């Protein structure tokens, strides 16, 4: 398990570091910021998870809800 997390952390670091060696071709100015995709990807997912959790609090029902 520890090995898997180490490898994953290395992959994360590599994907960010790779940006130093690649000519940026951003479509928008914002996209050209360092590690934009990494930060944005993480925040987007975290935001979606939090939103889903909140929606779930409102709309989740027992799975025999329609059977009764």
């Amino acid at each position, binding site marked *: 398990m520890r090995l898997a997390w180490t490898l*994953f952390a290395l*992959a*994360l670091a590599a*994907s*960010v570091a*790779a*940006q130093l060696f*690649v*000519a*940026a*071709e951003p*479509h*928008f100015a914002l*996209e050209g910021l360092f*590690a934009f*995709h*990494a*930060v*944005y*990807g*993480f925040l*987007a*997912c*975290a*935001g*979606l*998870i*939090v*939103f*889903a*959790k909140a*929606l*779930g609090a409102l*709309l*989740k*029902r*027992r*799975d025999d*809800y*329609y059977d009764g």
Partner: protein
Amino acid sequence: MASALAHPGLLLVAAALALAALEGRARAALALAAPAGALALAWNLEEGVHGRADFLGLALVPFAADALSRLFAIVFALMAFCGALFALNQERRAELPAAFLYAGSAIGAVLAGDLLTLFVFWEAMAVGSTLVLWSAATPSAYRASLRYLMVHLAGGTLLLVGIAAQVLETGSAAFAPMRPEGFAQWLILAAFLVNAAAWPLSAWLPDAYPEASWSGMVFLSAFTTKTAVYALLRGFPGAEILVPVGLVMVFYGIVYALLENDMRRILAYSIVNKVGFMVAGAGIGTPMALNGAAAHAFTHILYKALLLMSAGSVLYRTGRRLCTDLGGLWRSMPLTCACGIVGALSSSSFPLTSGFVSKSMIGQAAAEGHLFVVWMLFAAASAGVFLHAGFPWFVFFQKDSGLRPPDPPWNMRAAMLLLAALCIGLGIAYGPLYALLPYSATYEPYTAWHLVAQLQLLLFSGLAFFAMLGWLKRTRTITLDTDWLWRGAPARAVARTAAACAAAFATAEARLRAGLRSAGAQARRLHGPQAPLARTWPSGAIGIGVMSLLLALLLSYYLSGG
């Protein structure tokens, strides 16, 4: 006219009829040969009109092809082949013929040159897909299929009225690009969006599809929504309304998939998510966007089928469908697990998979059109897609459920391997796919910048997934969707009101009947046979009566006249 007989869709429909009569090896041979033949016919389709007809004074083109319809016909036929291979050992004999009717009608719909032919095949698809659902033969599948059929018949009615209005307006039934500006066009657009599972009319998809058999949902995932995408690409390219509609579908699909426990319902919500990208692409409407939507439809059909085959194999071996009841299956089902992972990576547009070379074209089109907000939302959604790629995690890893089912039989394994090879093959050698695309727009997926950007996006999505795993834990729940309106409290309120009205009506009717009955009895008492007012009198009595009247007259005459 010879070319009119070489219709790949009709070949599949004819095979459906023949399959129903065959058994054993002959059945298996035809089940594979028919879609292979349809694929060959679709591949060799020449652009142009292949059949004309006159109907009620309208010039119809029941069979025509161009680059766009050829792409869809090819992937539909390919899908029918893979699905048939996977379903060879399905014991329910009605399912495969129903699936061929469904697939053949879908091919017929994309090769229809006019709106009336499109409508006929559109309805045939609804029938075929309902039959696929019925062949699951469970009570819940039957109930879901009726709800499914209601939605699609309503959509079909919208389409028919829209087509009639369009023909009245223009005098032509040709299926040409339209703008959503008049009554007819709005109705046609609405009918297309019903089948595309656009929110809020999306609930039929995750409601019905997961009730199909382990092989049935593989077929269902491919044809209805993608025929609708085709119809939008041909009928409404560049209709701006489709961009917000598509974006809502994209996020709806992600959020609902995150909350879902049923593994195949997770994948069903993910279909809505993916079709949302295509619908938005149709709305952007540039050659790059339309190419992207078409390419994404092509690759999506294949990787979604692969994911559903992986889930279907688990269902086939374990009979379980909930993430909370599954987990740790990688030990005993390594091939099914590996194929599920390939499907999930492809679905997330991971580099070297088919999703990477197709979906990114739509984002590129948004960027080229300077649609900053749309592009940002696409990027957020592309990250979020990785979250519901969590399907392999919950089924094959997560925890040890103690289940040790083996990989499925050879034909199911072969179908998965074939699709996995296509997902990776098209991701590396994308030339043949790009050659099929309908519009001229050059796109190079493998630039260093695109690779780095996409890897950052996906890897950090993965980090969010594993870091917040506790929040993603599945529970034995469903999440209310718009179908609550016709399944939940509102439907019960309508049913209660209807029952109360029926009871009140019955009481009033009973009272009215009782009143009428007593009035009748009274009338019978007075006027019935032998009743006082209707008795027959003997003629002698009448004679006496008349005589006494005459006597009285005579008497009065004498008395007065004197």
